[in-house]
């Protein structure tokens, strides 16, 4: 099937090349420009975009992470090789006080915005305050911030009411990009406390950008494309591509086709099953890299119909009844890993945690001990979507088959994402499934969202209990740093794993697929894809 088509493609390419050569010869330009340089070749990226706004302090999505990173810069960034290492960004140095309540940043004096004006402390203050005051989806990242002081033009001091050792990692999140406050204010933006109602710059941000990143926004057309041009004033290393287009291509098959035809240079969401189609295609390079994303099922005893799940032995039995290796094979064609606790592989605290294992007899024994030798029936409402290559419908059908082996009947109820949100925040569902991707590189986010602590995450409202141990450990971790913090997060990971409210299913690997002459394509833990790093000559 495919070899034949590839052959056809090649033949067509040859024909087209011939035609082009002929045209060049006929028009007498044969002696003109030789091979294309990066300068006149645009970079085209294919992606199913989940973008609703281009305002860096309003957005909150995977595509936002990529675009905001290209347009705006943060005070610090994270080392892709080791997520716990923080590297300089707009700030050349920084320092935290002893109990991690106050952070002082010294800005790089060479940093300039795309209009040539310097990046100053007041821009940092303005950007952070606007993020908080707009009360958007990403505002929670700065929860607990009590004030920002700017003693001089290149110093910023950020204070928190409680210890917050996660703050440096959070500072590297794309949502904390620094905006040129003068330009933004001229165009209706506000960082005042009433910004949520008075700021009307969202429309302006759809057509313009005001950052210090390697690119500036050239054009945005919702549902079609985003065009970027290189920032002429960029103070860092100049990007190789002067023009970048991110194109809306919704499904894996179309992305694959366009990549093979040479219409796009990078395809961001190739499914694992489609990977086989690219084997032997020399024009396309594929790489499989580890990611921090994962899918999970949550067991929520306090939701209606969840009574059997109250017993931790029942939840443990469910964990043991799932054939994880089969799942990785079924869902992502083997391109995935197992994960022991809600803190994903590669994050602080995950290393020593035992991976889940398949033990059918053990599961049956545990269920019998808990008084459910004959099993029970429980319903599962989950969103119908494909997250990072994992089709949740398929995941739940596989889990359903596995649980049938121990007599547990799972009734599946797939719904739209918006309906799922209203279910989990309303009536509740005893079993659900969804995915999680990190917002920043600190493990605290996983405890805040998945821990059995009273902080309004997904899990706690439905567990019917609160773990004082986990609450205290989280507070402790946020005062600590280094190895101590690592140990505390490991304790938290083990405690959450023992609770078995959240059972990670698959940690899918990421497939990078791009034209072989492109270099610098890599998965960034803070920012997904850093467009500024892409170049020619792979």
């Amino acid at each position: 099937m495919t070899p034949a088509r590839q052959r056809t493609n090649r033949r067509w390419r040859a024909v087209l090349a011939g035609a082009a050569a002929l045209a060049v010869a006929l028009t007498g330009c044969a002696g003109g420009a030789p091979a294309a340089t990066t300068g006149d070749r645009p970079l085209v990226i294919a992606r199913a975009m989940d973008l609703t706004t281009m305002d860096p302090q309003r957005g909150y999505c995977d595509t936002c992470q990529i675009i905001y990173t290209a347009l705006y810069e943060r005070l610090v960034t994270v080392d892709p090789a080791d997520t716990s290492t923080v590297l300089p960004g707009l700030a050349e140095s920084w320092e935290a006080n002893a109990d991690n309540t106050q952070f002082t940043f010294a800005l790089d004096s060479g940093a300039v915005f795309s209009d040539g004006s310097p990046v100053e402390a007041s821009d940092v203050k303005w950007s952070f305050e606007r993020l908080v005051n707009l009360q958007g989806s990403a505002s929670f990242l700065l929860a607990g911030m009590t004030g920002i002081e700017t003693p001089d033009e290149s110093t910023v001091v950020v204070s928190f009411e409680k210890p917050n050792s996660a703050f440096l990692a959070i500072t590297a999140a794309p949502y904390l990009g620094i905006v040129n406050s003068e330009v933004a204010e001229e165009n209706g933006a506000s960082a005042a406390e009433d910004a949520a109602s008075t700021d009307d710059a969202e429309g302006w941000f759809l057509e313009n950008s005001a950052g210090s990143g390697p690119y500036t926004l050239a054009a945005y057309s919702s549902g079609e494309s985003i065009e970027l041009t290189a920032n002429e004033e960029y103070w860092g290393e100049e990007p190789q591509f002067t023009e970048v287009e991110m194109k809306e291509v919704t499904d894996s098959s179309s992305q694959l086709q366009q990549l093979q035809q040479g219409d796009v240079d990078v395809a961001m969401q190739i499914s694992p099953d489609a990977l086989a189609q690219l084997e032997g295609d020399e024009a396309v390079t594929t790489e499989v890299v580890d990611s921090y994303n994962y899918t999970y099922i949550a067991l929520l005893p306090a939701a209606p119909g969840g009574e059997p799940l109250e017993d931790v032995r029942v939840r443990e039995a469910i964990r043991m009844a799932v054939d994880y290796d089969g799942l990785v094979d079924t869902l992502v064609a083997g391109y995935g890993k197992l994960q022991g606790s809600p803190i994903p592989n590669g994050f602080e605290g995950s290393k020593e945690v035992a991976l889940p294992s398949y033990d059918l007899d053990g599961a049956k024994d545990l269920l019998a001990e808990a008084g459910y030798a004959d099993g029970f029936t429980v319903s599962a409402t989950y969103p119908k979507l494909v997250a990072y290559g994992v089709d949740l419908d398929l995941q739940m059908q596989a889990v359903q088959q596995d649980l049938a082996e121990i007599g547990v009947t799972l009734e599946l109820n797939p719904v739209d994402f918006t309906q799922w949100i209203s279910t989990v925040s309303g009536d509740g569902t005893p079993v659900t499934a969804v995915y999680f991707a990190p917002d920043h590189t600190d493990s605290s986010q996983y405890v805040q969202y998945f821990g059995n602590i009273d902080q309004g995450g997904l899990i706690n409202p439905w567990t019917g209990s609160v773990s004082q141990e986990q609450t205290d450990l989280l507070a402790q971790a946020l005062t600590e740093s280094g190895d101590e913090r690592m140990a505390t997060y490991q304790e938290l990971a083990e405690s959450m794993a023992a609770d078995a409210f959240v059972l990670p299913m698959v940690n899918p690997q990421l497939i990078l697929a791009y034209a072989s002459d492109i270099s610098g394509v890599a998965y960034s833990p803070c920012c997904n894809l850093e467009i500024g790093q892409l170049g020619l000559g792979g």
Partner: protein
Amino acid sequence: MSAATGIADFGTTSLAALRTARSSAWMRPQMVFGYVVVAFWLVLVVAVQWLAPFDPLASVGERLAPPSAAHWFGTDALGRDVLSRALHGARYSLPIAFVSIVASVAVGSVLGAVAGYVGGIVDAVIMRIADVTMSFPAILLAMAVAAALGPGLNNAGIAIIIVWWPIYARLMRGQVLSIKEREHVESAVAIGASRRRILFRHIIPHASTPTLVNATMDLGQIVLLVASLSFLGLGALPPTPEWGAMITEGAKNFYQPWIAAAPGLAIVSIVLAINFIGDGLRDALDVKARR
């Protein structure tokens, strides 16, 4: 010719009669094809658990395996046998379609007959409701109703009844209006029969032939509508091997075309067969009125 005489032809056993029957409108080639295909699926509805090679809900082979001797239509993303799933699909699509059409006919016919016979304000109210319902494209209204009721095959069936009854209400009302003026009805009125008796004994039986033909032809469309709703995620819930839902799974696995092929062929065969039978039925019963 009426339905009664047509069926009587089948009842005789003499060779001559059989020859007549075979050459008659009831045995034209495309109708015979229709009978065979429908009979094939009806047998499956009754006995699929003994006839399908594998359990439709169990993973029985390599996932996404192409067609082979063991799995004629390959396997799907969970390693389930696609052929067995497609055969089991008959158990969902056909009964739901049949029940939906019977209920639509029952509700539509009774309301239409009452509207036509009673007339006045009753007629106006019933027929305006029918008009409003019919002013929506069928699939859109069915989607809206199914989405409001929540996913599930039973809800899809209810949605289809809500969309489909006005067609029969209109058809029946027209028939009743013309039959009402016939002499046998007037004589019934003269001898003092009750209105209900006149309607159900003297009018509806004479008005049922076009409804029967229409219902047969619509059955195919309803099978398609059930599959469409499931394809859109508004019908069968996973892991039900419903044809429309199976085609959605096939669409997700673009490079494994066999997953969608089996349910696709199933839908094509049954809809084509029903349409052939419906066409033949229309000619055989000589029904000129098609809405």
